[in-house]
């Protein structure tokens, strides 16, 4: 598994962001860090549509994943 490995020099891959709904406790940090991509429902849980993440949001997405208090944000494709 190469999660967290440096990506410099690698061919761009399809990146997706999803939430582990069991771990998520609706802290909402992800939507603060990545408002361009994540909105919250009326109960505070993130809504993610599973679309491919644009390359320019990748750094923000990594930060959102790291900032989640329950580590519920999962980046896939790395």
């Amino acid at each position, binding site marked *: 598994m190469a999660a967290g490995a440096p990506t410099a020099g690698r061919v761009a891959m399809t990146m997706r962001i999803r939430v*582990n*709904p*069991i*771990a*998520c*406790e*609706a802290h909402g940090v992800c939507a603060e860090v990545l408002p361009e991509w994540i909105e919250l*429902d*009326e*109960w*505070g*849980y993130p*809504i993610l549509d599973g679309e491919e993440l644009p390359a320019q949001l990748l750094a923000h997405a990594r930060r959102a994943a790291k900032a989640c208090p329950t580590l519920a944000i999962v980046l896939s494709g790395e």
Partner: protein
Amino acid sequence: MTAVASDTWPRRLLAAVGSDDDDLYAVHLDTWGALPDVSGPAIVEAVEGSGLLGRGGAGFPAGRKMRTVAAGANRRPVVVANGAEGEPASGKDALLLGRAPHLVLDGIQLATRAIGADEAHLAVHLGSPVVGVVRAALARRGTADAVRVRVHEIPSRYVASEESALVHFLNGGEAKPTFTPPRPFEQGVGRRPTLVNNVETLAHVGAIARRGAAWFREVGDADEPGTLLVSVSAQEVTRRVAEVPTGTTIGAVADRAGVIRAGIGAVLVGGYFGSWLPAAYAWQLPLTHRAMRSAGAALGAGVIAILPPSSCGVAETARVLGYLATHNAGQCGPCLNGLPAIADAFRRLASGAWDERWWPALERWLAVVPGRGACRHPDGAVRLASTALSVFAEDIASHRSGRPCHASSAPAWLPAPRPPGGWR
């Protein structure tokens, strides 16, 4: 569409059904004979060639699943037979385990042989009458079986028999779904590749290993062959189990069950994750995954619930949504919050406590809740609710405008048992 005259419906799974006083093993051996001496690869080949699709709901090709688990095994795989029938309106697995358990137990042995497993588990509901039957059946077989089957009692909750929940339970946890991947076929019981099959699927394996793939294909739909156990409920019948060729229309099944079609407006197909369909449309619909998908429905575990003319579809949906809300695992926010909200809106619609400002909220919840749980529980509940809104559109307009419902005093019809206390 396959038209099958009802008098030609063969009995396969239900060919050797014993009563309480019978020696079920003797009844079984009389019809099926001893466990056949077929090699593991030959079993996989026969099941693949038969075209058997899993009978637990998803309809995945059973042979391909066996091959996947067998191939992925750098560790010894495990077989799990799922007989913890979560659908309150389904009775097929209980009938099979209660009256013909040995065909299922044969299927378990053949599945272990097919994938090279040395461990097998059979899950049934805690305190169910079939617990004693399967334990007695296993004792009756004595040491004839190559792999010992351990019986597990699962809490009778709707989501507890979901594949990942079952595996979690067998690993010592609560019977709640887990976040996947890995899927059980990759890493399941004891972190070993695990073949989870519904007990009806395994019973078919027991038959196919003896009679062959070509025999299996002699009846039913060409692409989804064989027979299928369905559970029919209507005004006249409750959970009547019938073995029907795949491709049989819902109308033919209703006729065979003695249901009078006149005056019936809607049919719930597939179970509580299923779809309401207008009756006139449902009668023509063949029982195949393909046809159900094209109708925006799902075959599920073969539940056919024919709404009695005296019952209100809105009220029945409200009760089932209330059931699904109380049976959620309490793990995922969108389901934990969304299902009670949707169920409450339906309860208000049904009971006359409606306020129009609920409508946009209901529409929003139905749009935002599905696809956001660890399992398909929220998706199923939303499908039920959404199809109710379209099929009962006229009734819903009446309920919204406060006109009294024709069935407001009708007794509750679909079963909605309360969840037991625990998850172990």
